[in-house]
């Protein structure tokens, strides 16, 4: 079991290395002539104004919260999906109750307008 995860760790290391080498080649062979104009953030040819990293609308964070709600639901569904043949109808009804509870949260979020953009 552990050996398999070591293989995955090796895979991650080698993949990172290969991507790093590819970028390193670019650093090695590419010209390096920095100038003030070149290092300006690209804004379609205009002089950039204000900060580059600014506050983003809260809607994006709302999506992230909704994602967590459903993601956790899915995490609980996964073990059931494997063993549900053994659990049979009982497991299915249990899972249906669980999904209905989350459905209440979903309906609440819908009613509050969290699913709406704007």
């Amino acid at each position, binding site marked *: 079991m552990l050996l398999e995860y070591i293989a*995955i760790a090796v*895979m991650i290391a*080698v993949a990172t290395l290969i991507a790093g080498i590819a970028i390193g080649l*670019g650093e090695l062979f*590419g010209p390096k002539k920095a100038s003030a104009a070149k*290092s*300006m*953030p690209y804004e379609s040819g205009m002089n950039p104004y204000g900060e580059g990293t600014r506050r983003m609308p809260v809607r994006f964070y709302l*999506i992230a919260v909704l994602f967590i709600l459903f993601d956790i639901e899915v995490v609980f569904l996964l073990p059931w999906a494997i063993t549900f043949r053994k659990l049979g109808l009982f497991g299915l009804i249990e899972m249906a109750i669980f999904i209905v509870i989350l459905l209440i949260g979903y309906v609440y979020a819908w009613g509050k307008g969290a699913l709406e953009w704007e």
Partner: protein
Amino acid sequence: MSFWINPLKVAADWLEGLLTGWGLDPTLAHVLVAFLGVMLLIVILMVIDIFLVWIERKTVARFQDRLGPNRLGPFGLIQPFADIIKLIIKEDTTPGGADKVVYNLAPILSMMSVLVVWAVVPLAPVMLGVDLNVGVLFLIAAGAIGTLSIIMAGWSSNNKFALIGGFRQVAVMVAFEIPMLTMLMIPTILAGSMNMNDIIQAQGGRWFFLLSPLGALIFLIAAIAELGRAPFDLAEGESELVAGFNIEYSGMKFGMFYAGELLHAMTFGGIWAILFFGGYRFFGLELVSPFLAIPIFLAKALIGYWIIMWVKYTMMRIRIDQMLIFNWVFLTPLSFVLLMVTALLNVLLRDASTWVYAVSMFASNLLVGWIALEVARSMSKKERTKGEGNSLSLRRGVG
């Protein structure tokens, strides 16, 4: 064991024998051979990736009634190598005020997250990198690193367009991950295992596509959204955001994002083939030799990739509100309903004959899809007759 039945095992045994013959510790020799195997897999993937550039350019040219690259070598096959040389000798600029560590790490992570997925992809019955019993879960984990690389690139570039593009892309990826995860559970339920090889073995006789056509379709839609390709490519939005999250990247760093995206598309084609089209299975031919199984799998992956390209170059871009409402109000409930229907039928028809089981699974999928479309149609009709002017209402995106 013959070379034609299990070439990797034969080669690994020979190499290990050679290394221990030189006086190397057997454990060390084993690790070294495994390392070489990983290297081989990644190098082959990179070579495939190089030719994917050619395939993509050639295909888009045909869709747009052009010829595509045809100057360098036969059919322009050398063109991608020229592209790479060009990318290498370009200057890597870093915008002022950028977070240098995060900025440089993002393209590496983008490529790495795609390459790592192939660790659990079975290429042939005897050829798979890691026989992980939670293979499906690993796919999700590796995909999450890709999402991370995009928000890293968008945030660290110190550019407003990159930031907006990154946020949009991540919002879409995160939202469409829900139906995708749910659809990953349908092969898991049908096979009773999260192991990729078990899922393929369970598809003997009938592909899961025949048991769950709607599941395969929802997975494809979610995969396209996850890739950020048209019609879900609003992160790119060239008329408004120029290029989205990778706007500040140049040279090989941009090349990594580009190559990563292409390989990601083919990887999703491959995963789609494994989950719903039997992976390397093709009427028993895969048992003859891995030299037959691998081309079968690659052909299926490329067909999946071609369908993703077909959608990309045919559809127009849709707005972010339409996209997210399509996901939250239509795709997510539909995928949960489909999951429960699949589970219910699997419990009820446990003792039924294969034909009854397969036909009722297929019919239930069609029924669920038809009911969902009818509900969406009636909701959007109600919304239209209400006449809310230009306001972006909740149900409009569905219709």
